[in-house]
């Protein structure tokens, strides 16, 4: 599974993308795995209310299932327009 990071999440983690083998059933389980990796991941995922998540390029919630997902992305609230 590809895990992508954008904006300050990308900057805090230090790179834009991880390729991850995971058994995580939901986004929350994936977040728990990522937090456990290194301090910079724990810092990036410290406050989930400041984050948004997309699974296969669709915005979703942190309790969304990951079955079949190929790409998960984490980023701050969007500021388009």
């Amino acid at each position, binding site marked *: 599974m590809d895990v992508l990071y954008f*904006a300050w999440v990308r900057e805090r983690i230090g790179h834009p993308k991880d390729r991850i083998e995971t058994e995580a059933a939901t986004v929350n389980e994936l977040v728990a795995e990522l937090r456990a990796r290194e301090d910079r991941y724990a810092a990036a995922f410290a406050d989930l209310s400041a984050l948004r998540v997309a699974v296969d390029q669709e915005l979703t919630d942190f309790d969304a299932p990951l079955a079949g997902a190929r790409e998960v*992305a984490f980023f701050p609230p*969007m500021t388009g327009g």
Partner: protein
Amino acid sequence: MRVVVQEAPFDFGAEAEAFASGRSDLGAVVTFTGVVRDTGDAARDRMEIEHYPGMTEKALAKIAEEARTRWSLGDVLVIHRYGALTPGEKIMMVATAARHRKDAFEAAEYLMDYLKSRAPFWKKEFSGTDTQWVAARDEDEDALKRW
């Protein structure tokens, strides 16, 4: 319907002129253009817009399609840039064409409200040696509630 995500500047005058031209069934055309301001919370020298290639185009197309189901629209255009921009430069535009002005206005406002908070763009400001990610504003999130 046309959705464009590009780094290069776009020609607003030419796009506005070409949009819905020759469509004599559409009486009302609305455009909105977003411009980089040089005064926000702090003066800014430039801005960089990051986006999520792939998802961006899908998200914009979905927002435009949703507008077409809600209002009677003859045409919709969305252009959004990414990359480095300086104050005064145009970031993006939307255009809507409809038989009547109410549909064209409401759809353009809807597109803007969703584009602000639901399209995967992130703005970073550069002021001298300071950099800062632009924070999402509560009022932009609140704006979605009216739809």
